[in-house]
């Protein structure tokens, strides 16, 4: 059992705080969704976890051992990211060979299938790849190298709809065949909403949500009905957003409902992760405040 722990990680560029006291635990064989708007600090966090960049504070541990300057722990992770760390002049076959040697293994069977399915020309040089195939090549490495932690930063960047579909299917197949921990950072929430088991939302360098998806969805309630009744019913609850059409109001509540009686005119249902994400990261104000008036 391997556990990846991030404790008290802070990082700033100049006076700008990119990460503020991040504490996270990644357990074995789960698929984590790391969500956040552009500039929320997702890439920086993944970069610090894999020791590409230094944090100002805090530490990253795998099985209680610091990963910093630690070959065996760093060798348990692979981060696929937008930044290209392979040199443009290298042939793909050479990159695979060198990566296999350094990580001590490579699933050629799977790689051959993926190369075929995605239609990747493996005899090219890395620098010649289009944005889409650049992502695809790095994804193939991520799925085929023998690591316990697969970190994917915006994995489907530049992929067309068919290739995205194929990637998600292959991700699940690979995960089923060989369960390990995935951390997927993305802003395309709907595409991964049902794939991830746990959701982490980063906003302005802080963790504002870190829960199993199932628990999160159980706390999402939309309350729809005449404005007066809805307001009455949701008074004192954690309203994180609302919609209005005419006199009909939808209040979105994140949290437990108490045992107050639901008026006949008001309907209760759930809402999805995407909506929750938008409300949480929009710094919704005017929910609870308005309710008190």
């Amino acid at each position, binding site marked *: 059992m391997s556990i990846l722990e991030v404790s008290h990680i802070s990082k700033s560029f100049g006076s700008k705080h990119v990460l503020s006291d991040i504490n996270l635990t990644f357990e074995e064989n789960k698929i984590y969704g790391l969500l956040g708007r552009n500039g929320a600090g997702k890439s920086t966090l993944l970069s610090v976890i894999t020791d590409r960049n230094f944090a100002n504070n805090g530490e990253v541990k795998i099985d209680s051992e610091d990963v910093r300057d630690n070959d065996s722990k760093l060798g348990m992770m692979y981060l696929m990211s937008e930044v290209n760390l392979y*040199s443009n002049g290298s042939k793909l076959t050479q990159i695979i060979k060198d*990566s296999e040697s350094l990580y001590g293994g490579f699933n050629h069977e799977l790689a051959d299938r993926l190369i075929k399915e995605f239609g990747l020309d493996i005899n090219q040089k890395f620098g010649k790849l289009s944005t889409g195939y650049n992502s695809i090549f790095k994804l193939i490495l991520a799925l085929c190298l023998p690591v316990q932690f697969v970190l994917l930063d915006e994995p489907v960047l530049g992929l067309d709809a068919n290739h995205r579909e194929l990637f998600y299917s292959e991700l699940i197949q690979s995960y089923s065949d060989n369960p390990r921990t995935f951390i997927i950072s993305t802003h395309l929430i709907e595409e991964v909403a049902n794939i991830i088991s746990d959701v982490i939302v980063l906003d302005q360098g802080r963790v504002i949500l870190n829960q199993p998806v199932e628990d999160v969805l159980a706390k999402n309630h939309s309350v729809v009905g005449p404005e007066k009744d809805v307001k009455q019913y949701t008074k004192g609850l954690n309203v994180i957003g609302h919609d209005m059409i005419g006199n009909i109001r939808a209040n979105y509540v994140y949290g437990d409902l108490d045992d107050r009686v639901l008026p006949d005119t008001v309907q209760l249902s759930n809402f999805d992760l995407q909506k929750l994400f938008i409300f949480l990261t929009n710094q919704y104000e005017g929910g609870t405040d308005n309710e008190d008036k």
Partner: protein
Amino acid sequence: MKTNKVTKFLFRKQIIGLGEMYVLLFAAFLVLPFIFSLISGSLSDYSLADQMRGTWVTAAFGIYMFAISTVSYENFKFLIQNGVSRPTFFNSQIIVNGLLILIGNTFNLAYQYLVLMPLVHAKNTNIFMSSYVGYFHNPFVGFIFNYLFSGLLLMVGALSGMVIGNFLTLFSKFIQRIILIVTPIVGYITVAYTASRVILDDRFQMTWVANFAKFILGYRSTGAYDPFPMIVTIVIMSVVMLLIVRYLFSKKQLKRE
């Protein structure tokens, strides 16, 4: 654990570069002048021996060591992507440089003893030969020390290259350019100023600076040179630079580009 694999990876990349460098060097210093003489019709002026003496294999090797150090960021990127730590990168690079020095030094000396000396009948083909070889009466011991001494010189050259190269790679491309432009200017002004003062001021002639330099070079009042002070100096310099390089490696991180 990973040091072996990383060493192999770096060695394969850099030995190929070294081979290419030698080929280029010979092409530039031997073949090109020959072609030019041929074209300009002045073939009688072309002397293979002159051209070969002008081929500074040793210096070129030092420059190559500097060059591979300045591109160490490329290797860092690939290695950190593949879960290789900074200390392992450092250890492997030092081993690779050691191997390259061994190979380069052997090649350089073989070239000097087997090609250059018979061809141009020169005895002072490098610093050691021109200054220190007289210290040893046994030609075989002289050869051994020539090998050792040249190797140490290459090591110091390689380490200086590594210090400068790895220092530069800590910065963004923009800052690197500024440093590359400003440093020579500042350096030139400083040297020119100091030199002018030293030359103008007679009192400097016989001061401790000159004595110290003589001591380092191993000058004896008999007129002969003793190689040991120089060797010790080189070793001390190497250790200091090695520590600096290790520190610079530990500071490597991904740049925001």
